[in-house]
């Protein structure tokens, strides 16, 4: 979950000072003032801790602007010193703030990207002494981006793996800003470096608004997924756990970001239609289910469409028919169906995972479902902690339900994901 607006004031203040500080620092270095080198180092460190984020998994440090611009502005030795000490400072602060793991990943990312940007910028400057400052900066930018893509394949940032495609606008933004700041500082001087950093501020403002809206939407969908559970139509935590499996499967199957988001959202909301059917009272005898999973899928899709929700998600819910053995018409539908079925079998007990895997594999009839089942098998074998993490994600809500037996809403067999098919008491 993303704490909204927590770092915004600090980050904005840091951003505002960035251009001025870089310009002041760079200019003063030419006159050899040690104090300004120190200030510049601190600025690099602070900027490296402030994110330029589009989403939680598409954030790059604002300090990238400084890392990319410095090779063109300072002699190689001074740039190396500033970047090295800046990276150390940032690592130390992050370690104190969030612990060794985060500190280590921050440090590794900064070290690798700084080294690449500096090496590339210096190489271009040495090889072509007459090269324009913009060319040197662009060379540093290309090296920075390449190194960042490589290093974020290995280390996780804030517990997430970087979505390179999603972060592309942020990369273009830091590269463009760095070029603007570098050429302005080099050709006009200190004061105008501030002006050159203003477009970066506007872009960052847009990014922040987008990131907040994205986080809010994710959380609202998460809340909506809980509605059937609150109404006693599914066990508490089911949507959260199934979404966890769907996300992991989508990544395993290399679905695009857009496809992955659609699959995860559809998995969360696939039981929504059940809310229209009140579960029978505890002990009530019923012959027929109130609604079939088919009806639930259709009703849920209709509710979403009527409210103006993106139709692709509603369509996926309708065709996936989660909770049935219907042949899924697409890979995405198969992922939704399998994630839901797997959680239905595992529930809150990770020890059931092997049995559940065997069952879903045995039930997989068509080629697509078999493929997804095999991927799930591989996923759990490769990452046995996956099921535990999924279960833990659902437990957050379980804690809030302490003192209330939501099972009383579901009837005596509360815990099944097919509350519509109640056995006779």
């Amino acid at each position, binding site marked *: 979950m993303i704490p909204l607006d927590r770092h915004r004031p600090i980050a904005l203040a840091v951003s505002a000072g960035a251009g001025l500080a870089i310009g002041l620092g760079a200019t003063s270095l030419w006159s050899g003032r040690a104090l300004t080198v120190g200030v510049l180092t601190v600025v690099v460190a602070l900027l490296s801790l402030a994110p330029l984020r589009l989403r939680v998994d598409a954030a790059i440090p604002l300090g990238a602007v400084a890392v990319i611009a410095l090779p063109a502005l300072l002699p190689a030795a001074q740039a190396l010193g500033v970047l090295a000490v800046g990276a150390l400072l940032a690592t130390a602060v992050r370690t104190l703030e969030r612990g060794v793991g985060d500190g280590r990943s921050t440090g590794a990312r900064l070290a690798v990207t700084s080294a690449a940007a500096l090496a590339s910028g210096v190489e271009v400057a040495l090889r072509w002494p007459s090269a324009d400052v913009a060319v040197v900066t662009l060379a540093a930018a290309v090296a920075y981006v390449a190194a960042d893509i490589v290093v974020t394949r290995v280390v996780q940032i804030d517990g997430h793996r970087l979505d390179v495609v999603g972060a592309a606008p942020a990369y273009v933004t830091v590269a463009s*800003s760095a070029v603007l700041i570098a050429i302005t500082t080099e050709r006009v001087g200190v004061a105008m470096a501030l002006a050159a950093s203003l*477009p970066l501020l506007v872009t960052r403002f847009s990014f922040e608004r987008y990131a907040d809206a994205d986080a809010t*939407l994710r959380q609202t969908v998460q809340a909506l997924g809980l509605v059937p559970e609150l109404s006693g139509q599914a066990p508490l935590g089911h949507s959260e756990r199934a979404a966890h499996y769907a996300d992991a499967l989508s990544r395993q199957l290399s679905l695009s970001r857009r496809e992955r988001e659609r699959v995860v959202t559809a998995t969360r909301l696939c039981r929504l239609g059940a809310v229209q059917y009140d579960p029978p009272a505890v002990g009530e005898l019923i012959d027929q289910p109130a609604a079939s999973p088919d009806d639930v899928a259709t009703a849920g899709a209709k509710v979403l469409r009527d409210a103006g929700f993106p139709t692709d998600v509603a369509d996926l819910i309708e065709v996936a028919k989660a909770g049935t053995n219907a042949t899924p018409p697409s890979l995405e539908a198969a992922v939704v169906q399998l994630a839901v079925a797997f959680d239905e079998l595992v529930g809150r007990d990770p020890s059931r995972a092997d049995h559940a895997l065997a069952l879903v594999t045995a039930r997989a009839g068509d080629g697509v479902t078999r493929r997804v089942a095999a991927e799930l098998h591989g996923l759990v074998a490769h990452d046995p902690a996956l099921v535990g993490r999924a279960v833990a994600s659902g437990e957050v809500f379980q804690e809030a339900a302490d003192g209330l037996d939501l099972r009383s809403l579901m009837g005596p067999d509360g815990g099944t994901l097919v509350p519509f098919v109640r056995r006779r008491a």
Partner: protein
Amino acid sequence: MPRTSPLTSTRKTLIDFAFLAAAVAAVTMAVTVNGQPRWVTLVVFSLPAVASANTALRPWDADADVSLVLFLAMAALGFLGADGNEGAIATTIAISLCDALTWDTFRRRRWHAVAINIGATTLSAGGAASTYLLLLQLDVLQVIAMGASVVAYASINICTLLFSVYLDREIPVKVLWSDIRPTIPNYFATGIIGLLVGVLAVTIGPAVIVFSIILFAISRWTFTTFLRLRSTQGAVLRVFVRLIEAKDAYTAGHTERVAVFARCIGEELGLPPERIDRLHRAALMHDVGKLAVPSRLLNKPGRLTPEEWDVMKRHNTVGVGILGRIDFLRETAVTASDKHGHYNAPGHDTPPDLVFEAHIVAVADAFDAMTSTRSYRQALDQSVAFAELRKHSGTQFNPECAEALIAAIERRGERYGAGHETDIHEFAVPPPIVGVGSAGLGDLASGATAGVSSTSDGEA
């Protein structure tokens, strides 16, 4: 809700002519005093401006639009101002007009809007360019000239728009101002950056403009995507509202009416727009706890037993508690929780502004409950509802919020309650004219102690 009073076509035509005449006069004066537009500059800056204007974001969502046209017009002004300044005013006006003359307005034949936009844009851009060049000639510090120029643009633009919209629809200036106020930082951000980039382009070369446009284009793309997300967010909230109302068949339209009343109170109290948005969202979700209450209890035609009443309360509380685990709904959970809405409730660790919003929602909730027909009684007259709100002010209701709602409704001349209902549920047994008991949650407290299911949402 603001009243609108459509203009007669004659009056509308007169306004159109006045705005167009002002634009023609401004352009004539600009060409006479400062010379004809610089055609090469005009073409170079107009191309991205035209592209940007014709992929414009929705005007009503312009609370922080990243305006490429304003940026480009000001960049051209900065560029020409540092390069002899001849023709700068006319060029700036011409580039700015790309915002007014979009394909969409012509396609939809919105001639009135075209005339107003031409007038407002011409006067704003002309005023800004004249101010900038005049101050430069007076050897004023360039930064001050830039600031004054943007202030001139913003003031003229806002004043003309306020004037035209007021004449057009007679929307109170206060309401218009609250819509326009959030756009002010945008004028300064894009206007000043545009001028700076234009000035730098003379010294450094066109690379500055190219890289700045890249950054602004990314901002604009991000902002467009943000608007899409916000629209989806609205759809998700609508799903919530539908599900809540589907649980409780007797309270059709209640949630959205409460949100409207809460917004009225917020506006009457002069809350900032972002807080009113939060309030509106919270009001839409105020009955979210009902989702955890079995429908058979919510829709029970008779009285609830004390045991059923207890189940209902517990489920509501836990429902709110579970949803409160999600960051987005954490604040909303405060308004959805009974304990915060009551004015005399003991102190909590909740931030005061959230408690105040809970008070607003409680008043809106109670007013709608009283002015709607429920299974246990018909809608009360508006005057009776007002009297009840005043009677319980200072105890159950926050007096400030209660008076704000009454004042807002009276000032707007709106009528609610008996004889003025819009969403009427058909009951199998016609409800009595007066009585207690219901199908909601809010006023359970008083009824429960008496063993009566008086559950109108927040009814006093």
